[in-house]
């Protein structure tokens, strides 16, 4: 239950974003209510004059003109209320997307590591969109359901207390019974709703798995399973719906019976001369209008349910831990990009650094080492030993929970985050291409890309020739929907990106992990060009990567096991030697390829 109220609270928190629109929508609804009452009065007046007083239509020009005006007003307010509801949603959705993206930054790569990217994309795209019906449909409907019946009641009560009594007695019964039946039905309904979502996910999952099913001759088996699931779902759902629709039945029952009752009661009092035709007709005309917004509430309730489902995902996303270092407020200028070429890189010092994740997992413990400016340090260790955490710390994706990191002797937290990141080039295992041209991808993040520098970077990364052979050379579109590049080409583009950035600190996460032998050789050669004048930290899985390193840092269970030149470590016969024999040599010692 508390979870559900958290979802509702999430929706409530968003309301102030659209306060103005929601207030105007309420005003429009109020004005619309006035128009409804005025229209009923005018119609009753006209019919009373025409049928009881036998006045000709042409003597009723004023009421007819007023009626036309009121109808226009009514249409205008209905339109305005509708539009304002959507405007409210239009304020909320973009703001929500922006804040979700900010949350993404706060969580950082480490904070979202365990979530599949598709799930996060769905939260930001569809989750944000999902709250729209709450603002565009549910809130306006609630306003109208309160304002209009109350207004009608206020007008009818002095004229016809008996009909007003019918309204007063039945109106609260509607929500009462809806809640009574709805409570049980809503729980069932929501379960069913999720079930439906899961089921359509299930069909999609099966469709995606079709090649696999076919490979195992299991396709027909699955066709039967799909049919059985859908049929089982039908039976289960109908059992729920038969009950859930009872709430709608209650609504319909009271609304319809009340209208019929009002008509009959008014009719008899007219026969007995206890009321005027004008008043009687006025009340009868208002009777359906009294119940209409209440009925609309029933459908709008669905909108709320959808929005709550979306909010549930938003809340789950918001609850991810904020692991990244918060951005510093100062806006650094682009002028600080990189240091002058030829500078000797940066000196790093880890002082008793510890890192414990919110779940209690200890990633690093008492890590202590130094890297001289211009030095290349290879980091090795089993997976989970803390290699990636070291790089993540330097990039500000996580903050140490103990100890401190000095960069050129300055404590890291005192350096502006953006300025710090501008001094870093990062090459992950699989660099990501962004939709855009090859040039855009090399000069990623540079508002004023320099063509000559791009070309130099591509040459240094041994990818210039390949780019020249593309349909539009450096202007060829790559990434989503663009020209497809091989894994090795993408890796070299990532390398070109690092050359272009020309940063004093280069961080690499085993850049050759997924490459074949030839491409690996190319990349290693380029990395040799990148080293001079820079400090390099590289996570190494392969022997070839170690050859360029001045020293090797061996991580084990979040601690520094050994550090020193490769040859010395091998000779010492310690951790590195053991690792070298098992994990590192497997492929390289065994195979030289078939060629």
């Amino acid at each position, binding site marked *: 239950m508390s979870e559900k109220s958290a979802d509702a609270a999430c929706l409530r928190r968003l309301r102030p974003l659209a306060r103005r629109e929601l207030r105007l929508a309420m005003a429009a609804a109020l004005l619309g209510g006035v128009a409804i009452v005025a229209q009923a009065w005018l119609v009753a007046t006209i019919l009373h004059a025409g049928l009881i007083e036998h006045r000709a239509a042409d003597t009723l020009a004023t009421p007819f003109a007023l009626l036309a005006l009121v109808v226009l007003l009514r249409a205008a307010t209905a339109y305005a209320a509708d539009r304002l509801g959507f405007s409210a949603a239009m304020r909320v959705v973009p703001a929500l997307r922006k804040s979700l993206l900010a949350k993404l930054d706060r969580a950082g790569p480490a904070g979202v590591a365990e979530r599949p*990217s598709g799930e996060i994309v769905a939260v930001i795209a569809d989750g944000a969109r999902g709250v729209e019906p709450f603002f565009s449909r549910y809130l306006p409907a609630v306003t109208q359901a309160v304002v209009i019946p109350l207004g009608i009641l206020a007008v009818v009560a002095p004229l016809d207390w008996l009909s007003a009594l019918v309204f007063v007695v039945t109106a609260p019964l509607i929500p009462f019974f809806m809640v009574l039946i709805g409570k049980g039905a809503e729980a069932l309904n929501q379960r069913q709703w999720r079930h439906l979502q899961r089921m359509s996910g299930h069909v999609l999952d099966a469709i995606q798995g079709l090649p696999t099913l076919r490979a195992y001759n299991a396709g027909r088996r699955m066709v039967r399973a799909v049919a059985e699931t859908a049929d089982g779902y039908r039976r289960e759902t109908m059992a729920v719906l038969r009950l859930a629709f009872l709430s709608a039945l209650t609504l319909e029952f009271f609304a319809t019976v009340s209208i019929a009752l009002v008509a009959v009661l008014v009719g008899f009092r007219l026969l007995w001369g206890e009321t005027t035709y004008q008043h009687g007709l006025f009340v009868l005309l208002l009777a359906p209008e009294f119940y209409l917004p209440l009925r609309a509430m029933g459908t709008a309730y669905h909108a709320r349910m959808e929005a709550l489902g979306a909010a549930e995902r938003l809340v789950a996303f918001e609850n991810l831990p904020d692991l990244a270092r918060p951005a510093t407020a100062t806006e650094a200028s682009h002028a600080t990009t990189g240091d002058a070429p030829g500078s000797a890189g940066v000196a790093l010092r880890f002082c008793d650094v510890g890192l414990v994740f919110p779940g209690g997992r200890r990633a690093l413990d008492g890590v202590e080492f130094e890297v001289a400016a211009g030095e290349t340090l290879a980091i090795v260790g089993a997976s989970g030993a803390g290699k990636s955490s070291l790089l993540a710390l330097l990039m500000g994706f996580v903050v140490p929970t103990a100890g401190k990191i000095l960069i050129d002797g300055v404590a890291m937290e005192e350096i502006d985050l953006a300025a710090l990141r501008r001094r870093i080039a990062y090459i992950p295992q699989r660099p990501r291409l962004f939709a855009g041209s090859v040039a855009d991808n090399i000069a990623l993040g540079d508002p004023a890309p320099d063509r000559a520098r791009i070309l130099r970077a591509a040459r240094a990364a041994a990818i210039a020739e390949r780019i020249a052979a593309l349909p539009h050379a450096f202007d060829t579109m790559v990434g989503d929907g663009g020209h497809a590049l091989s894994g090795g080409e993408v890796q070299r583009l990532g390398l070109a990106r690092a050359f272009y950035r020309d940063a004093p600190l280069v961080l690499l996460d085993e850049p050759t992990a997924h490459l074949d032998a030839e491409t690996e050789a190319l990349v290693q050669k380029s990395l040799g060009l990148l080293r001079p004048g820079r400090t390099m930290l590289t996570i190494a899985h392969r022997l070839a990567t170690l050859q360029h390193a001045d020293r090797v840092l061996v991580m084990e269970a979040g601690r520094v096991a050994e550090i020193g030149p490769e040859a010395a470590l091998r000779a010492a016969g310690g951790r590195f030697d053991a690792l070298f024999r098992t994990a590192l040599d497997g492929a390289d010692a065994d195979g030289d390829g078939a060629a």
Partner: protein
Amino acid sequence: MSVFLRLLALMRPQAGWMALAVLLAALSALAHVALMATAGWFVTAMALAGVAGATMNYFTPSAMIRAFAIVRIAGRYAERVIGHEATLRFVAGLRPWLFARLERSAPANLETLRDGDLLARLRADIDRLEQAFLRVVAPLVAALLVAVPALLWIAAYDGRIAALAAALLGLAGLALPLALQRRSAAAARRLASGTAALNAHLVEEVEGLAELAIYDPDGIHRQRTLAASDALVADENLLARAAALDGAGMLLAAHGQLIAALLLGLSAVAAGTLAPADLPMLALLGLALFDAVGAVPAALRAVPAVLAAATRVFALADRPPAIRDPADPAPLPATTGLVLDKVSFAYPGAPHDTLGGITLTLPPGRRVAVVGPSGSGKSTLALLAMRFVPPRAGGLSLGGVAYERLTGEAVRERIALVGQHDHLFGASIRDNLLVGDPLADEARLREACRIAQILPLIEALPDGLDTFVGAHGAKLSGGEVRRLLVARALVARRPILILDEPTEGLDVATEARLLDALLDEVLPGNVLRGDAKPGGTKPGGSLPGDVRPGDALLGGAQPSGAQPGGTLSGGANPGGSQPGGTLDGDARPEGSGARALLLLTHRPARLARMDEIVRLEAGRVVARREPHGPRSRRAEPAGPTP
């Protein structure tokens, strides 16, 4: 239009339910219209009687009001229940239909569905089709069934009022929605591409989070993402405005009709052509009529989207299978030697061959590695072997029977493939393994997991084999997924095992262990064991290089030292010429069951243990090597043990 008719044809099995739902909807709407009209007449007639001091029969009209109220209430409930029943029955028919259609053409024609966008669109399309009856067909038909009798009712009293109501109904219910629809068609079309664009930007934001943080501290990419979101919201706004205009138009028409009915009606009453009490009846009837058809604009708005969805789904469902099974297929071959004879393959529309003249023999007991960079045609080789696609030239055969004479199912009864894009279902580990063979028992699952080097990991999980793997195996690492896929192929116990990059995402040590385990366990009759146990008591034990699958199948019957297999290098036909497939082809050996292994990889790992290494580049064999010829193989151990 033909798309629409086809969609209706798909609904035919549920036509009875659907007709009932529509009739009930129309009936309950008409009851409401009648209720309002009768009430208007009744109140006026009573007032006139009251004024005149006359008496009147009020029993009939008040009984009618009560009756209409009951019909209205019961009808609404029944309509909703029946309508949903019809829809869910339609869903229960549509899904297996679509699934079976898609199954025919998998996997070659489903390549595009690996794209997340297209998949999301397919999901939306299916949802739309499933809602087509409830949202589109039912409201439109019901509106027609209400409008016609209601208008006739009005016409019976006053033709001019009826004509006017009909005109306004057509204007607001048809013309305006259609006009608005045309005006906002561009926005509606952009909606799909805008959603895709936003999603693409967001995927980059999420997957490129680290790189953007480092390389793009000014947030240039973030600005583009937000701009994509704004563009999408702007289009949604345009469409919402069209919907709001539709609503306002309907409201104006309904009440404009009321004003006109009052004007015309009063003069008719004055002229004596209309009874006074009938005027309020007609006025309220008109209002209730517009109320009853209020869902029409929304239904019309949904039509193009439903048709577009149907067009896309039908196009997908109509893709012809890449291969048709022979009308008169040969029986399952008794033996299982796989031969590719000068096989070439080109993807439709591609300028040159993906594979050019590949010859490969995989007799039982043999382990072949095809090594080549990505894009060299390894995966295509696997598709051909699985009889998922036909060769452009050359031929394949299994146990000596040409592929053209075999059904795809028969081929796949003999070959298991661990492909690069194999799917893990959002289910338990157990369910995923059982895809390989639904009848496999617990012991077999565990054995397969053990060989695939994933059993310790599964046993460490609190729910063990019943652990939910998440959508697409999201709760597992890439390496764990690969190992689970290998385990599934082992559960299937096919005599031939094809592994396409099985160790992607594994660290070097695990990779070596997995390959060793496969080489050891999958082929229990390797020389070392054969030597250790002369006479090969192990069923299914076979010899590497054994050219006679029949003998290999017989396993224990053959002394291990026999058949040095010298003929293999000569490329002799390893399959059909040997009629001695004395063992029933369906008999499955113990253990993992595989007797031949084809490894497709770009990583040269554990190649020393292969019987043949084929180097593939750009679809052509550039080198062939046997690390240990038949003779030397017998002399040296089959590889280092770590």
